[in-house]
């Protein structure tokens, strides 16, 4: 598992537009090309949201199936990738909730998976790479409800309103979860908080 700085596609939105309308008419080859172009991004989002690769693959699979079936409802006023993000976020959220009821990934296993994925590249400054690596692991360790919000807000830059809509919670709840998630991330990253002393 490696990390790269750019997804596989070098194609513009015009090309996407033609593919989308062909796919909407039932052209499977066109849809396959859209999948190819967006695959790495979708997979990355799914890993960030689920916290592990196995679930991410399931989520990606389901997200593309939902996208294919729902393509007629895609109006084209947003980017295809944004629309796909929404579907992926939604799928990941329901997948993680469902999975939580059945099984859980042991923490040790999860740490190794995410740490491997974030092995620092040689050209990166060691400190930043180490922080990135720890951060990615910390995100994966968050409870799923908190992780979903912090990934969508602080990694992907979605508005509170949109996140609330995606996760079917109130905006106030989205904010509370975000602030809790940031606090937990901070504690996971910098485990050096002094005991109870304080200044007035």
């Amino acid at each position, binding site marked *: *598992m*490696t*990390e*790269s*700085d*750019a*997804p596989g596609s070098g194609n513009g939105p015009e090309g996407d537009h033609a593919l989308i309308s062909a796919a909407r008419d039932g052209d*499977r080859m066109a849809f*396959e090309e859209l*999948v*190819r172009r967006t*695959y*790495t*991004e979708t*997979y*990355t989002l799914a*890993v*960030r949201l689920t916290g592990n*690769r196995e679930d991410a*693959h399931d989520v*990606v*699979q389901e997200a*593309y*199936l939902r996208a*294919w*079936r729902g393509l007629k409802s895609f109006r084209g006023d947003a980017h295809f990738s944004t629309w796909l993000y929404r579907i992926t976020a939604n799928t990941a959220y329901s997948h993680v909730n469902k999975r939580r009821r059945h099984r859980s990934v042991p923490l040790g296993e999860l740490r190794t998976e995410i740490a491997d*994925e*974030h092995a620092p590249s040689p050209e990166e400054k060691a400190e*930043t790479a180490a*922080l*990135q690596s720890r*951060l*990615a692991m910390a*995100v994966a360790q968050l409870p799923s409800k908190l992780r979903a919000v*912090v990934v969508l807000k*602080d*990694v*992907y*830059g979605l508005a509170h309103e949109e996140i609330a809509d995606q996760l079917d919670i109130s905006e106030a709840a989205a*904010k509370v979860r*975000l*602030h*809790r998630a*940031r*606090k937990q*991330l*901070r504690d996971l*990253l*910098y485990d050096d908080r002094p005991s*109870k002393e*304080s*200044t*007035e």
Partner: protein
Amino acid sequence: MKCDEVQALLPALLDAGGTPSVEVRVHIETCLRCQADLVRYRRMLRELRELRTRYLEPSPDALSRTLVNLWEAGEQRAIRSMLTGRRLAYLAAVGGLLVIAATTVTVLALRSRRRAPIAGG
């Protein structure tokens, strides 16, 4: 104001428009520990944003597996929904017949009850 109280507010202060009260601002301006914590939060946020473009490579066969499963799953669902559709149509037909039968029985029963007093009087 205590550091713990201020630090509990820091995650919310990072939001756009998250303006601290005068009391909180004064504390942060004069407290090195809370300043350091704020710096850490800001750095953390910067690094979180960076995660978006740090793409993770799926395993080499993942894409082809997704495409194969995509069409297979699509077909399976189509078959399932067709079968469900037929089952529903069947149930609807049976339900319709039952309703008709029940209505007929009720109407006949009412008629015979209406006739009964005439016959008796």
